């Protein structure tokens, strides 16, 4: 593993006491219950988060008023072993429409025993979000996007 790979990824994992098929199904079918709900780019509360279970599918939040925020594309869907999706959210918590500036999340499911599954999550290529940051930064001046960021960060940090 290189230093660069380490610096541009976030990794976390957990072990669940369920078989691999169920572990995969829960992640993809109940993603609505998994995604921290306060993480919201809609102007209204989220009614549900939809994970379309197929390659080429989308992950989006649907607001209580019916509005939608599409923030990920399913890049690989390989039950029960692996799912990969894009992260089309800029560091300032806005939707990134330029796919060259998006990172990706891979979730791997590894059967440890018939009733136990290790789930490894890697959010990688974070450096891709960096393209053009300097110019954006001059325009934003550290304001604008930050109050929203703060609110979310505080909520996350206080658990």
């Amino acid at each position, binding site marked *: *593993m290189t*230093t660069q790979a*380490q*610096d*541009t990824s*976030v990794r*976390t*994992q*957990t*072990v*669940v*006491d*369920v078989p691999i098929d*169920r*572990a995969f199904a*829960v*992640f993809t079918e*109940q993603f609505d*219950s*998994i*995604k*921290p709900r306060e*993480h919201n780019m809609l102007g209204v509360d989220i009614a549900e988060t939809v994970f379309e279970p197929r390659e080429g599918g989308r992950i989006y939040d649907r607001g209580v008023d019916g509005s939608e925020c599409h923030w990920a594309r399913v890049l690989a869907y390989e039950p029960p072993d692996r799912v990969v999706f894009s992260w089309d959210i800029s*560091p*300032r918590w806005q939707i990134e429409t330029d796919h060259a500036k998006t990172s990706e*999340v891979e979730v791997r499911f590894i059967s440890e025993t018939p009733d136990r599954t290790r*789930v490894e*999550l890697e*959010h990688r290529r*974070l*450096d891709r*979000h*960096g393209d053009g*940051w*300097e110019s*954006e*930064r001059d325009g*934003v001046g*550290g304001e604008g*996007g*930050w*109050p929203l*960021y*703060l609110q979310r*960060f*505080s909520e*996350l*940090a206080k*658990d």
Partner: protein
Amino acid sequence: MATYRTDGWIALGDPTRRAIFERIAERPQAVGELARELPVSRPAVSQHLRVLKEAGLVSDRPDGTRRIYQLDPAGLESLRAQLDRFWTRALANYKAVAEQRPEEVS
């Protein structure tokens, strides 16, 4: 796994540093202002700011004789710290949901 420099996640593991970070996130400010609001000495605040800066979470700019600290919006470490929080929390939710007995699943 080796850490090569101060990691944002570790930097925010300290409650005082997190308090400083959150205050800076509310608005950019100088060391003196932070020291007045927090029950720590000015040199201690400076030390914490240095760690946050090394972690890529905050940056500073001169303002007359003072230095103003602000969140570093371009900081990769800042992004990593947020996402680490996000996914750690998501997987905790996931484990809770996955290990519910089927009749409890809504």
